[in-house]
């Protein structure tokens, strides 16, 4: 039997992290390394001192004539062996033009050996793989090629981003490049501190940074091994880099196809992708089938960069379950990808910033700008920075300038002024600080200008918080009372387990908004969004009200759907209002259409469904029970229901209609207040109140089982 690789010897290294990518549009000046450092340092809390790195693409100071092979080597012996291995490829046409030997004196662990070479792609790939494989034994790495490109250079090491930037002398003078990607690493286990585990991971002309821990790792490994990657450091990010390189360079997939292979969108999304992105269903099926082993699963947010003689490309991919934070930004000169908005805002206070939709990808190039924005094509963009907004009329009794403050300092300052009696506190220039207002007394008014970080107003029990900007992830988790007013948009998991108070968002709300929301006694929590909502809206919801208004679409008369997929899965109670129509296949649990069709066709063979009825059903836009049942006989209904019903799900009642009296009673007071808070026009309000809404309610609960307990011998 083959003895070529062993799964049981693969090391595993788990990371958490912060990522960044900045691309300069072709008309714009290049990006400096010190700017990149400033931005990634904003995500310092995501990382640690255990690793950081940068890749610059088309750096001014580095000629793009030769391939630079950069290799970490442990000692002189390893250097000699690695060099000998590289030289052994001379007969195949690999030529070493020039080299810089490793400087062990100034390196703390491994030193970098640079070799400038001329070689064909395949020879170069084989040489790099051979060095990696030959100088690794049982998880000990004596040498590791970490960059092998003509058009980019990777700088990575152990430390915070600032340490690495200093180590490589990237700041004085600053390096200028057409694109940078950067990373700060949070390892769960760091066996000694070697730079080989740091990001970016680079192979040939690709370089990537990643935040996440893919669950498909074990299945990706054999795929890459059969593609010639013998030695791995055990980091999933390295593997993703190999996969991208393989799919694009060897399999010659286009960038969109490679992106869709890696992210492997749900089968039920293929139709949508065919419509939106022009890759047909059959091709998607081929990608899903032919490249089994290259699909990623579990959490990932990847920024990948590629450069060639012609152009520079930046690709961002995100897992379909939306488990990692990932925002996209754009201004006049640049395109950004980042874990947190503050990384973008620190460089570009007025950039447009939005969240990438799960299952989509972001693709941009220097020459073409955005090719894919990570959004539905018909999306009407909401942007806080372009907004005509009401003046902040409140007068503070304490003002704090948050510039340069870490979150601990800022929270301490807020607590101090609050304890001194301040009831109306303003914070200026907030830049990603976390946990703001987690312990504020009730009836305190806190106004934040800027971009607050994650976990804003968790456990809130009555404070009133206004954000003049966008809010980040996990805002208002387990809030019991008070209010949150966000003049921009909110990112993912807004109002998780919200059980009192109200959240008004002028713009969009991200994925998993209002999940686990509930009501009790007289508490009736409310989330109202003026823009649109992402996937999993109101998941597990058991009380309260969510309203998504889509005002921008309403104003311009667009009939685009204003929520993502998977609305109200596992909903037990409460009310969801979505203005406009919603594809019924997106609401609640709807089995895969192919499976329902197989079942119906079999019932037809059984003689339980008439041919005509089957044809009518097949023509339905979505195969939901309420649409199908009028067309079926009773026996068939009972059978088909079993595909939909579960003991663990309540059936949902979905209605598309103008608001009725009861709806008005629930919504009108909040709509009035919402319009007043955000200074919106009465005309729009009238239009809104006349609009069609999709209302989602959970069906009344089933009767309780009341059978007697078993008789037990006593």
């Amino acid at each position, binding site marked *: *039997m*083959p003895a*070529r*690789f062993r799964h*049981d010897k*693969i090391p*595993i290294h*788990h990371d*958490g*992290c912060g990522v960044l990518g900045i691309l300069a549009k072709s008309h714009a000046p290049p990006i400096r390394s010190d700017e990149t450092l400033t931005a990634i340092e904003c995500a310092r809390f995501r990382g640690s001192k255990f690793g950081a790195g940068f890749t610059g693409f088309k750096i001014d100071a580095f000629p793009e004539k030769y391939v630079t092979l950069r290799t970490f080597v442990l000692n002189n012996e390893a250097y000699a062996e690695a060099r000998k291995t590289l030289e052994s490829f001379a007969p195949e046409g690999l030529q070493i033009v020039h080299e810089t030997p490793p400087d062990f004196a100034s390196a703390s662990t491994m030193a970098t050996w640079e070799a400038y070479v001329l070689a064909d792609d395949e020879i170069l790939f084989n040489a790099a793989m051979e060095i990696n494989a030959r100088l690794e034994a049982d998880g000990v790495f004596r040498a590791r090629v970490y960059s092998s490109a003509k058009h980019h250079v990777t700088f990575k090491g152990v430390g915070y981003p600032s340490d690495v930037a200093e180590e490589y002398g990237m700041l004085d003078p600053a390096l200028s490049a057409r694109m940078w990607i950067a990373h700060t690493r*949070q390892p*769960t*286990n760091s066996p000694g501190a070697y730079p080989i585990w740091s990001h970016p991971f680079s192979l040939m002309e690709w370089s990537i940074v990643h*935040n996440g*821990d*893919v*669950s498909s*790792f*074990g*299945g990706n490994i*054999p795929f890459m091994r059969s593609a010639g990657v013998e030695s791995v450091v055990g980091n999933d990010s390295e593997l993703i880099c190999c996969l991208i390189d393989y799919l694009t360079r060897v399999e010659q997939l286009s960038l969109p196809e490679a992106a869709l292979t890696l992210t492997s969108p*749900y089968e039920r999304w293929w139709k949508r992708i065919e419509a939106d992105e022009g890759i047909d269903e059959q091709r998607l*099926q081929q990608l*899903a*089938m032919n490249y*089994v082993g290259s699909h990623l*699963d*579990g*959490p990932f947010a990847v920024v990948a960069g590629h450069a060639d003689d012609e152009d520079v490309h930046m690709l961002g991919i995100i897992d379909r*379950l939306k*488990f*990692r934070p990932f925002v996209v930004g754009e201004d006049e000169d640049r395109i950004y990808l980042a874990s947190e908005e503050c990384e973008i805002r620190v460089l570009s206070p007025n950039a447009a910033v939005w969240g990438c939709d799960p299952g989509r990808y972001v693709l941009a190039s220097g020459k073409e700008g955005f090719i894919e924005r990570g959004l539905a094509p018909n999306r009407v963009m909401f942007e806080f920075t372009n907004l005509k907004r009401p003046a902040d009329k409140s007068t503070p009794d304490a003002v704090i300038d948050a510039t340069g403050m870490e979150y601990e300092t800022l929270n301490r300052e807020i607590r101090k002024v609050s304890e001194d009696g301040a009831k109306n506190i303003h914070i200026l220039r907030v830049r990603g600080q976390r*946990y703001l207002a*987690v312990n504020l007394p009730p009836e305190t008014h806190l106004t934040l200008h800027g971009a607050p970080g994650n*976990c804003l107003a*968790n*456990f809130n029990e009555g404070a009133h918080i206004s954000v003049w900007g966008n809010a980040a992830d996990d805002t208002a988790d*387990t809030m019991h009372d008070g209010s949150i007013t966000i003049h921009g948009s909110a990112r993912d*998991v807004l109002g*998780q*387990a919200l059980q009192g108070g109200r959240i008004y968002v002028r713009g969009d709300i991200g994925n998993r908004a209002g*999940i686990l929301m509930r009501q*009790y*006694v007289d508490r009736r929590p409310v989330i109202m969004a003026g823009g649109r909502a992402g996937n999993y809206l109101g*998941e597990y919801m*058991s*009380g309260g009200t969510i309203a998504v208004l889509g005002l921008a679409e309403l104003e311009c008369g667009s009939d685009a759907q204003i929520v993502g997929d998977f609305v109200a*899965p*596992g909903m*037990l109670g409460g009310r969801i209002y979505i203005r406009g129509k919603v594809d019924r296949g997106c609401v609640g649990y709807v089995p895969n259409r192919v*499976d329902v069709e*197989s*079942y119906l066709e079999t019932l037809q*063979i059984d003689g339980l469904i008439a041919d005509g009825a089957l044809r009518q059903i097949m023509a339905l836009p979505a195969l939901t029970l309420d649409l199908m049942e009028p067309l079926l006989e009773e026996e068939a209904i009972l059978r088909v229901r*079993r595909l939909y019903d579960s003991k663990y799900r309540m059936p949902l009642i979905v209605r598309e209609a103008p608001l009725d009296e009861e709806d008005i009673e629930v919504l009108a007071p909040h709509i009035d207040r919402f319009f007043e808070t955000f200074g919106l026009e009465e005309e729009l309000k009238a239009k809104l109140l006349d609009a069609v809404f999709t209302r989602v309610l959970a069906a009344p*609960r089933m009767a*309780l*089982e009341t059978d007697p*307990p078993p008789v037990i*011998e006593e």
Partner: protein
Amino acid sequence: MKKIRAVKTINSYLRIPTPKGVARGEFWSPDRIEYMRQLSETGKAAIRSLDDAAQYAANSRSLRDRIRLSPAENGRGERPQPDISVQLNGFNGTKPIPLAAPLVWGDMSFGAIHAEAVKALVRSAEATGILSGTGEGGLHPDIRHLKRFNVQWASARFGVDLETLKSGSAIFIKIGQGAKPGIGGHLPGMKVVGDIPSTRRIPEGRDAISPAPHHDIYSIEDLGQRIWALKLATGQPVYVKVAATNYVPYVACGIARMGGDGVVIDGHLAGTGATPEVIRDNVGIPIEIAVAASDQMLREQMMDGEPLRNRVSIIAGGGVTSSTDMLKLAALGADASMMGTGPLIAMGCVMVHRCHTGKCPTALATQKPHRLLDIDWATERCIQFVNGLKEEIELLLDELGYDSMNQLIGNRNALKAINLNDETLEILGLERAGGRSAPKSRTETDEPTEAPDFWTPWRINHIKANADTGEALITSMGSQSPPFVEPPRVICDWLRSDGAQVTRPSVDPYREEIETSVYLAGGKTRLASPCFFDLSRYDRLEPEAHALIARTASAVGALAVVSMDVMDERIARYGRAVALDLMSEDAPPAGMGEQVAAFLIEDRADRDRLPLRVESLKRAYGKPVFVRTPPIRNIHRRVKRLADAHVDAIIIRDEVNAETGEVVSDLSSDQHYPLEIALSIADMAMRFSENGETAARCRVNLLASSERLRGADDIFKLIALGADAAGIGDAALIAAVGRAGGDLDDEVDFESPDAPIRLENYYWATQKELKLLLGAAGTSSVTTLLGSRELLRSVDLDPNARELLDVKPAGR
């Protein structure tokens, strides 16, 4: 008129029901329960010496019972009574928690158990100086003023607000639990009554299934964020409770780095009020390995010049029954043990596995009003139970030769293994009793047990329950699971699946999309779930059974392999889901080839003609051609030959002795490998191409089929070992259609009106159980599970077999 029943007060022990029929392997045996009752009634030690301890552990397969306590070199001497108190550390500036004994009560929620039981637990903790927990059900108002409990912060946030979080001694963030790693808490609807809906703030009468992951904790830095949010808001110490899974040492290190004050590791055998049986029995690694590996990695990893171990306490739970278990876990690295089932038994639990039905006869795990636990009696039993354990620990520590518990914690010298293989010993950091020269452990319990008892009553009942309801089977408490309780029967029984936590989230299998569909034969065949029915050449089934199974395959989107000798018009109506086994023929009879979905041929004699047969079938019908082969020892050469013949899929099927009907492919055979091993080897062999061509595995599907395939757990493991899909033989289908009783030889009526419904139910329930396993492992698609051996771990499996499978051992 409503019948009013008198309230019965429970203030004495009920008789322990004896298991019916064939020995029903249950970890919590009547002997164990009797021992715990003795402690609880007397408050005195029952295990008084190391000999007693050894005897207590005899005849058990759990790892800790295959390890003995071993006295220190200086042995017993004149010394004062050992100090058995320990301290849970409050490293990051938070207050430490002193414990009078190395023991905490497991977290059981108000809801899962009755209010009286919750109160008795906290009161007994208060009286004995240990710690209790609230579980995820919020804080009962009657205990709010007490101190010796932790408050749980779980994924559904039931009943938590700032005041609650600031109560008690600590906050436990519950990420996972041993009885259901990767799955959320589950409170059945009939228990969501009375005060419970208002305490949890959920609708009355509905199953409360907490999200599988915390939706704010998808990574290690996210966990850090939650730890600090809670610390900033409350000032309390924050512990993180996780299940014992593949990456638990990394998770423990992550918790330490992120500022957690303690790591609570809950292993298999831990109790629960409700869990899917398939999860309880297949996910997670033994607590012994989890604790030892975590302790070791925490000692090796440094932060600011200090081992991470100094920053966190370790609490270990999962089937802790006695003082002996507590001492063993301590020596493996735990600062304290966690007992949940223990105090329930002290309060009268008789282990009838009915918590999930709400019909507990002992008034513990119920919310029905007609039985009421006597709280003073229950409190006293728990107190005496702790007192008995304390005395036992003192006696054993003394005999072992230690002055205090602290000397024992992490001290592997205090343990010697008696029946574990070398690999397991190395992971645990233990020596073998009798020294190096002692014989390597192989006992009869380490060999696969062959039929006739392959189909145990509990496996058959599982299938029947699936067929009854179409849902995953829910159970509660205890375990019969191999390899810890029941002896393992096939290789799959030594394999454990992963529960994703902290480094990555699990995927919610009840409410989020998990894809189980697979495409075979270049997209020509789609299976709704990665399994098919393999019936060909099983003459146990009547023709009408074949017709019904083909019909089921058509309805649920599967495939049924049917042999030509039974093929008829009834079956042909559902031909779109039939793979026709051509047996010795080269081509199907006229007209039949058009009606079926695929062809199957056997790779036996005249192998030289095989490529020709494949080619002519493909040309004539344009349909996929599958080839079946037994799991022969040179499978790696055979699959390459078959791939070169351009077959669409290769089915490896267990080899059955034609005369006895017994499966002959096992570890002792010199002609065959066990199915799992042959599959894993075949998958890897097909991934390599000699001359730079695309690997054969990219165009040829690999399927594994066995008469012994029992359900979703086997399917999951076979896919992780390299199969695209798994074939279910006739045995499971007979079990599904047959109604009562646990015997496969019963007459089964495939023509009864509910037979089609039962078969559909079985398929769908299996699909749901597969989704549970996939979600728990953090995967949202069956295609990314394919060949992912990293998601499996073996437990004390023969190292040669393990290497052939290419699976890591648990703890690595």
